[in-house]
């Protein structure tokens, strides 16, 4: 029995099992939980969260944290909308508006990531402080750009990117596949884990620690911007405060999946399951007609439980 529990806890599919168990428990109380409409609804909000969580996972694996992910979402959302909206956009009416807008958003996200990475790697400042400062600064910049105003009238080709679940699924699948390849098959992936386990040992072993750290933050910024493309498309509006409140979801989903806050541990599949579990909890609590206060407290409890399980798994996994 003990061996079975140990195997279950250490399995890659542990959180998926929790998802199935959770769904089985809530279905009798929420009949519409298993409706097609609700399934599509869960998926449409799951994909952008998955993308930004995968970026956060890359940073967490190195032992860092990227608090600026939500600021990147807001900043890139509003800059993208400023560029491509059909009324006042710099690229209004151009057939290249949508691809150019996406490229601009991704470039800004990567640039913010580069800034964070260089500050962490070169100055030796704690990632928490660096990314907290950039979160504050870039959030302020996003709000200042339009004085807090949201922008709509986005091209339909752009709206489709986030608004159609199938398209968002394709993008998320491609990102997850690429991230999996990077982590499991590439040298950069091995370096990320090495830096997260022990940066000093990694440096002595010839790993370019600074470059690896910068890469992780660039990936995080880039993927936060990609998530912003989907979120903006869903809302059909660029907003400087888009995604401002989802940081708990990003960290929660990543940690629930099993990525360690201490670094050196994390898998794409774990994050997929973590995001799925968090969305199932969120969605079912709405369907149960619980108040926002109850939902927030329950999510906090679930994340705490996940952290406890993570620590139990770490203990079990230690020889």
């Amino acid at each position, binding site marked *: 029995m003990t061996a079975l529990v140990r195997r279950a806890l250490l399995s890659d599919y542990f959180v*998926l099992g929790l998802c199935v168990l959770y769904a089985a428990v809530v279905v009798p109380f*929420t*009949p*519409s939980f*298993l*409706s*097609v*409409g*609700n*399934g*599509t*609804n*869960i*998926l*449409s*909000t799951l994909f*952008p969260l998955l993308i930004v969580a995968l970026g956060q996972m890359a940073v967490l694996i190195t032992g860092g944290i990227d608090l600026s992910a939500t600021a990147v979402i807001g900043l890139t959302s509003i800059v993208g909308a400023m560029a491509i909206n059909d009324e006042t956009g710099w690229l209004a009416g151009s057939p290249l508006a949508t691809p150019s807008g996406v490229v601009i958003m991704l470039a800004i996200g990567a640039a913010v990531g580069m800034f964070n990475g260089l500050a962490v790697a070169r100055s030796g400042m704690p990632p928490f402080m660096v990314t907290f400062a950039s979160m504050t600064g870039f959030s302020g910049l996003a*709000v200042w750009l339009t*004085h*807090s*105003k*949201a*922008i*709509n009238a986005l091209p339909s080709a752009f709206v489709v990117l986030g*608004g159609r679940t199938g398209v968002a*699924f394709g993008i*998320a*699948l491609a990102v*997850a*596949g690429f991230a*999996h*390849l990077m982590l*499991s*098959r590439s040298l950069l992936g091995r370096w990320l884990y090495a830096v997260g386990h022990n940066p000093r040992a990694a440096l002595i072993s010839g790993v370019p620690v600074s470059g690896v750290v910068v890469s992780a933050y660039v990936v995080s910024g880039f993927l936060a911007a990609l998530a912003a493309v989907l*979120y903006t498309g*869903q*809302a*059909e*509006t660029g*907003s400087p*405060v*888009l*995604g*401002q*409140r*989802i940081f708990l979801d990003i960290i929660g989903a990543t940690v629930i999946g099993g990525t360690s806050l201490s670094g050196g541990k994390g898998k*794409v*599949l774990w994050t*997929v*399951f973590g995001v*799925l579990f968090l969305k199932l909890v969120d*969605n079912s609590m*709405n*369907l149960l*007609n619980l*108040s*926002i206060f109850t939902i*927030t407290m329950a999510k906090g409890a679930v994340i705490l439980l996940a952290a406890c399980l993570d620590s139990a798994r770490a203990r079990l996994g230690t020889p």
Partner: protein
Amino acid sequence: MKSTLLTLTLACVALLVGCDKSDTPAPAATNGHLTIGVAFETLQTEYWVAGFEAIRADLKQRGDTMLEAVSDSDANRQLEQVKNLITRKVDGIILVPKDAKTCLPMIKAANAANIPVVLFNRPADKSDARSVAIVADNLALTRETVGYLVAEARKAGKKVKAAVLLGDLGDINAVGRRDGFDAAVKGQEDIIDVVARIPTEWNQEKAQAGVVNALQANPDIGLIFSSSDFLFPSIVSALKSVGKYHKTGEPGHVLLGGFDGDATAYQMLKDGYLDATGVQDVYFEAAQSMQAILDLRAGKTVPEVIRDPGFVIHRGNLAEKSAQMWGARVAAKK
């Protein structure tokens, strides 16, 4: 790699395939009673809580069921919640959106499902999305409130420096209140000198820092208008820190005006610290929201905007008007 992609794909497919194709509605409308989805952007201020509770009480009185959703200021989460309500086949949706633009896809989704949508106190931008908004005339009420403050300043007979706390200018109500303030002080330059326009984005910390900064730059500010009463604790704290929080009639009193009519404003009016506030009639708006849904369901023509006339309450009419002020009722329950 293969297993990861396969698992991801299977997880998504399983979620959809495992779903019941019938899209089972949750609490169906029975015995003529309706199920109404109430989706609020936030419950962080007394006004929204009072509105939420007024709608809840109204629905309870009618024997209807309320499905609630609060998005914690997250537009994408609110879109998900509205889609949830649509999936559950509610009979109508009362929505307080984050702003005038992000609600458009929500309204379109409800339109597509033929579910009437009423926007409570925060209208949407012009578009082809069909909805009804119940909203106070922010501009007129603010103009009247600030007009009262200007008249009081004029009675004192000397020029007054003024500060205005602006809300989130992505919120059309905040824009209306800003415009109402500007309209009231326009042409009054002989008595009013606006020296500070403080952006708060509906944030108390920003409001407090802004008022402190304004008072440092202009210690002789004599009039402050807040675009919402919920910012008064920040203003009071800033005034107290520089020893300028005095009752009407006392030397050094700063003329104070606000908007909403919450319990704090009522108490400040009663205690003599607040001069005037524009009151939104939350109970009127709640009742009209439900009536609009009923009318839309009955196929009646409903105007796109239903105005809450509201009123200005000040020291002169406090006794007469306080019974209609929602903040006074909230204060009485405390």
